[in-house]
C-alpha cells in the first residue's frame, strides 16, 4: 500500500512529500503510532483530500507536513526543504512565507478587520500587499463589502471564506485545510469547497485538505485514505458516493482496524 512512488501521477512534481513518516506518541505501554510509515506525494497544482476514520492519523499527517509538528522518523519535505532540518524560527518563517492554513474553526483574529485578517501573514512578514492581487482575491471570495467588518459580524461561511483568502494571500506553495467545512451548514460548506477548488484550478495552487466528509472530499482531484497510521488507498477523480462506499468499508472493519488507535 505504501508503494505510491510507482504510481503514474508521481510524474508530476511534488509540492509536499512525506517519506516513511512515523509519529509515535507516548512510550512503552502507552505508545501510540499515529503515523506508521506513510510515504505520499502531494503534486503541484492539485487539490488532494486526506480521509480516514477517527484516529487514522490524517490530522497528524497534515500537522507534520505543514511544520506544525515534527515526525518521530522519516521526512517531510516542502519542495526541496526538509522540515526536520529547520529550527522553530525557520519553521515559523516557512509557514508564514510558503504555507497557507484554513482551520476548522477559529481562523480569524477577532480584533482585526476582514482585510487585516487576510493580509495578516504578509503584515507579519513586513511584506507590502500587492493591491491588484489583493483585490482579485477579495473578489474571488466575494467579500468586497465586508472588508472593514470584524469577524464576529460575519456568518460562519463568510468567516471561512476570509480564511481561504488569508491562506492564499501570500501565494504559498501549498495550502493546508483542516476540516474547513466541519463547522458549516451544507450550503456554506459547498461555497467554501468550490472556492478552494476554483482557486486551485485558476491559480495553479496546491491544496491538501483533511476531511471526513465524503461530499467535501468529492471536490478534490484525488482522495487518499489513511487507516491506523498507514496509507491504505488512493482514489483519483472522486465522487461523494464512491468515497462514502470506501469509508463504509472502514466502518465495517472498524473494530479490527481502529481498535488499537483509540485510547
Amino acid at each position, binding site marked *: 500500500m505504501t508503494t505510491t512512488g510507482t504510481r503514474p501521477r508521481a510524474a508530476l512534481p511534488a509540492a509536499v512529500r512525506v517519506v516513511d513518516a512515523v509519529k509515535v*506518541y*507516548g*512510550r512503552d505501554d*502507552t505508545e*501510540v503510532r*499515529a503515523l506508521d510509515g506513510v510515504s505520499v506525494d502531494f503534486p503541484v497544482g492539485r487539490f488532494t483530500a486526506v480521509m480516514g476514520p*477517527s*484516529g487514522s492519523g490524517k*490530522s*497528524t499527517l497534515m*500537522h507534520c507536513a505543514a511544520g*506544525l*509538528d515534527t515526525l518521530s522518523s522519516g521526512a517531510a519535505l516542502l519542495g526541496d526543504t526538509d522540515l526536520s532540518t529547520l529550527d*522553530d*524560527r525557520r519553521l*515559523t*518563517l516557512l*509557514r*508564514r*512565507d510558503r504555507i*497557507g*492554513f484554513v*482551520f*476548522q*474553526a*477559529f*481562523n*480569524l*483574529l*477577532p*480584533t*482585526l478587520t476582514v482585510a*487585516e485578517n487576510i493580509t*495578516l*501573514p504578509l*503584515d*507579519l*512578514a*513586513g511584506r507590502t500587499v500587492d493591491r491588484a492581487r489583493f483585490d482579485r482575491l477579495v473578489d474571488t471570495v466575494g467579500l468586497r463589502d465586508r472588508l472593514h467588518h470584524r*469577524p*464576529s459580524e*460575519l*456568518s*460562519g*461561511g463568510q*468567516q471561512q471564506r476570509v480564511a481561504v483568502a*488569508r491562506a492564499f494571500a501570500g501565494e504559498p506553495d501549498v495550502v493546508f485545510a483542516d*476540516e474547513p467545512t*466541519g*463547522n*458549516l*451548514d451544507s450550503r456554506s460548506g459547498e461555497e467554501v469547497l468550490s472556492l478552494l477548488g476554483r482557486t486551485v484550478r485558476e491559480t495553479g495552487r496546491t491544496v491538501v485538505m483533511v476531511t471526513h466528509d465524503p461530499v467535501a472530499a468529492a471536490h478534490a482531484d484525488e482522495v487518499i485514505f489513511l487507516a491506523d497510521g498507514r496509507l491504505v488507498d488512493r482514489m483519483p477523480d472522486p465522487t461523494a458516493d464512491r468515497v462514502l462506499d470506501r469509508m463504509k468499508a472502514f466502518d465495517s472493519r472498524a473494530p479490527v482496524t481502529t481498535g488499537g488507535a*483509540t*485510547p
Partner: protein
Amino acid sequence: MTHFGAKPNARAGSKTNARAKAKTRTHTEADTRTPAETHHHTEADTRTPAQTHHRTGTVRTPASLRLARSSLRAHRRRFLGTFAAVLLGVAFLTGTLVMGDTLRASFDSMFTGATRGTDAVVRSAVTVTAAGEAQGTRGPVDAALAERLAHLPGVAAAAPRIEGAGQLLAADGTPVGGKGPPTLAGNWIEDPALNPYRLAEGRAPNASGEVVVNRGAAKAAGLALGDATVLRTPDPVRVTVVGLATFGGADGMGQVTWAGLTRADAERYLTASPGEATAISVRAGPGVSQEELVAALGPALPDGVEAITGQRAAEENTEMVSGRFLGLFTTFLLVFSGVAVLVSVFTIHNTFAVLVAQRTRENALLRAIGAARRQVVTGTLAEALTVGLLASLSGLLVGIGVAAGLQALFPAIGFPFPEGDLVVTGTSLALPLGVGLAVCAGSALLPAVRAGRTAPLAALRETQVDVSGTSRTRATAGGAMLAVAVGTVFAGVLGTPSLWLAATGAALAVAAFVVLGPVAASVAVRVLARPLRGANRGLARRNALRSPGRTAATATALMVGVAVVTLFTVFGASLKATMDRTVDRSFAGDVAIAGASFGAGGAGLSPRLAPAVAALPEVETAVGLGRGVAEVNGRGRALTVTDPAALARTLDLGEVRGSLTGLGADGLAVAADEAASAGLAPGRTAELTFTDGTRHTFTVRAVYARADLAGDYLVTREAWAPHRTQDADSLVAVSFADGVEAGQGKAAVTEVAERYGRPEVQTREEYAASSAGGIDMMLTLVYALLALAVLIALLGIANTLTLSVHERTRELGLLRAVGQTRAQLRAVVRWESVLVAAFGTAGGLLLGGFLGWVLVRASEGSGDSALAFAVPAVQLATVALVGLVAGAVASWRPARRAARLEILRAIATE
C-alpha cells in the same frame, strides 16, 4: 472559550453544533496522547480520586468550598499575582508595626535603664512653646540649689545637670551629626547613679578641655581616646577625648551625639551665666520612695521650680522619642503601607474580575446543574479568602523577618539600634492579617456577586461583548463626579483656602478617575498607540482596546501608584521653588553662613562670628540672627534676636512702618501678617513672658511686610540678653562692600569662619539649595517607600496579562500557525503591556499633578508667603519613562509564557 465563529453556529442550529462537538472530541482525544499531556488533563486525573474520597469520607466539605479548592489547585499560577500583592502589602504593614513596637520598647528600656538611679528631677516649672514647635523651652534652675537639696532628709545625693547644644568635629574636621537628631553636650556627673551615661573606656573628665564622648558619636567621628578635636558650643572649644560612654547599654541614644565636660566647662560654654543648670538630679536615701522624695523636696524649692519623680522624667523622655519621633515615623510608614494596600486592592479586584469573566461558562454550568447562586458566590469568596489567608500568613512571616533583619542591619550601618528582643504584639499580627483577608474578600466581593448572577443559559451562549467601556451611565456618572470634584476643589482653593473642602474634592477626583477609567481607556490607548507602526504593534493596540474595562482596571493600580509619586514630586518641587523664591526675594546679601539645615541638630553659629565678619574690610554689613522664645500676650512665639537696623540692609523686609533703628531693650518689630492677627501696631504694647519667668512690657516700634527669613518678631540682643540661654545664631547674612568681587569676599569670610568652628559659607544659590536639601532627602525616602506600591501595580499588570494570554490561547496558536515568530509574539504582549502601563502612567501623572496643585494651593499661607506651584518637568518625564519601562518589564513572564505555547495544543483546545 470559543471566541468567534461559534456565534453564527448557534444560529446554524444544534445539529451542526453537535457535529462540531463530536469533531472536537476527536481532537481532544488525539491530544491526550501527545507526550506533553495538557496540564488540565493531569489535574483532572489526579483530582478525581481525591474527590471520590471526600464523597465517601465521614466529613463532608460543602460543595462550594470543594469547588474553590479544586479551582485553586488547578489555577495555582493564576493566583500568583494576587498572592504576591497581598503578601507584599501585609509584609510592609507587619514590618512597620513590629519595627515601631520594637523601637518603642527598646527606647523604653533604654531610658528606664539609663535613669534608673535618678529618683527625682528638679527643674524650672516655666516652659515656653513657640507656635509650631514640638517641644517647649524650659528655663534654667540655680545650680547651688543642689547643695541645699543634698542635705534634706531622705536625699542621698543631688547633682546639677547642665545640657546644651554641642557639635563635635570629626577627625577630618567635618561636623558630626546635625542632620536631624540633636547634638548635645553636658556636664559629666560624678555620681554614677545620677549619670545616665556609663564609662565604657577611659576616665571621666577632670580638667578643662577634657571630654567623654558617647561611643556611637566617637565611631561616627573616627575619634579614639586621646584624640584632640573641636566641640562647637557653638564657639569652638578645643577638647581632648578622655573617655567613651554608653547610654542605657547602647552606644548612644539613637543617633544623638553627646559630649560630657567638667562641670566648670559646662557652665562656661553651655549656660548663659555660671551657676545655672538645666535641672537637678536627685537620688533618694534608703527606704525612701520616689513619691516620698518628691514630697520631701517640695517645701525646699523656690518659686517657679518643680520636682517630679524619676519615673515620670523617664516617661517624659520616652514620650518625647516614642510619641513624637517614633509616632511620626510609624505614621509615615503606615501611610505608605496604606498606599500599597490600596494598590493591591485594585490588583486583586481585577484578577478576580477577569477570572470570573473567564469562568462564565463553568459557573453557568454549575448553575444549570443546580448550584445555588449563593454557592457560586461562596465558592468564589472562599477562593479569595484562601489566597488571602495563605498570602497574609506568608506576609506576616516576611514582615517579621524584615523587621528582624533591619534590627540586625541598623547597627551594622552605624545606626545604634537599641538592644532588645523583637516585639511582636497581638495587634501587629491581627491587624495585617485582618487587612489581608479584608482586602482579598472585599476585592473579590463584586466579582463573586457577578459570578453568582451568571445565568444558567450563559453556558450555551458565547462570551458576551464587553460593554464596560462604552457605558453611558458610567461616562455620565464619572463626568458628574469629576465636575463636582473640580468644583469642590476650586471652592476649597480659591478665596480663603479650606483644606477640608480641597481634600474632599481631591478624594472625589480620585474616585472620578477610577470610574472614568474604562471610558477613557479606549480613547487614551488609541492616542497613546498612535506612534506605533507595524503588524505586531497593531495587534497589541487591538488587544489593549478589546476590553477597555479590563485595561482600565489593570492600569488603575499603576495610576494610583504613579499619582502618589507625582503628588510628592510636585509638592516637593513646589516647596523648593518656594524656598528659592524666598531667598531670591528676601535675601539681599551676598553670602550666608547658615547653621544646620531644617533647624535640627547642630550647635548653630557662634554669636561672635557676625561681629568678626563685619570687621572685615570687604564686608559692609554682617548680621547674625539668633533664636529666642517668649510668650507674647500669652501666646508662645519664636523671636529673632538680631540687630534689626543692620538686618534691614541684608534682608529685604519689604515695606516697613515705623522705625527699625532704636528698638532698644524694650522695643519689638513685628511682621505684618502676625501683627494683624495679634492686634499689634506701631506704638502699641505687648507683654512678653520669658523662660526665666519674668514679664516685661515691650512697645511695637515697627511693622515689616516680609517674614520669610526674618521671622515674625524681631528683638535686639540687648533686650534678649537677660533672658538668654545658650547663645547661638542660626544665620549670618553678609553684604559685601561696594566693589568687592564675589569670590574675593567669600574667601575673606570663609577665612574668618574657619576660626569659629568652620561653618559653611554659602552664596545665595548655595544657600537656597541647602535650604531645600532636606526635601530631596525626604523625596528619596518617599520614592523608596512607593516603589513597593508600584511593584504591586506591576504584578497586577503581569497577572492580568497572563490571564489574557491564557484566554487567547487559540488566537496565539493561530498567529503562530500562520507565521508569527516567537519574538514577534513576545513583542505583541510587550507592547500591550507598555500601552496599559502608559495609560496608567498618564492617568497617574494627570491625577497626581492635579492633587499636587490642590495640596500646594490649599496649604497654609496666602499672598506673599503662599507656596509657589512648580511642575518639575525632568522628574515627571523620568516618572513617565519608569512607568513605560516597568510596563515592558511586567510583560516579561506573560510574554514568555505566550511564546512557549505549543501551537498544536492551542489550535486544538476547545
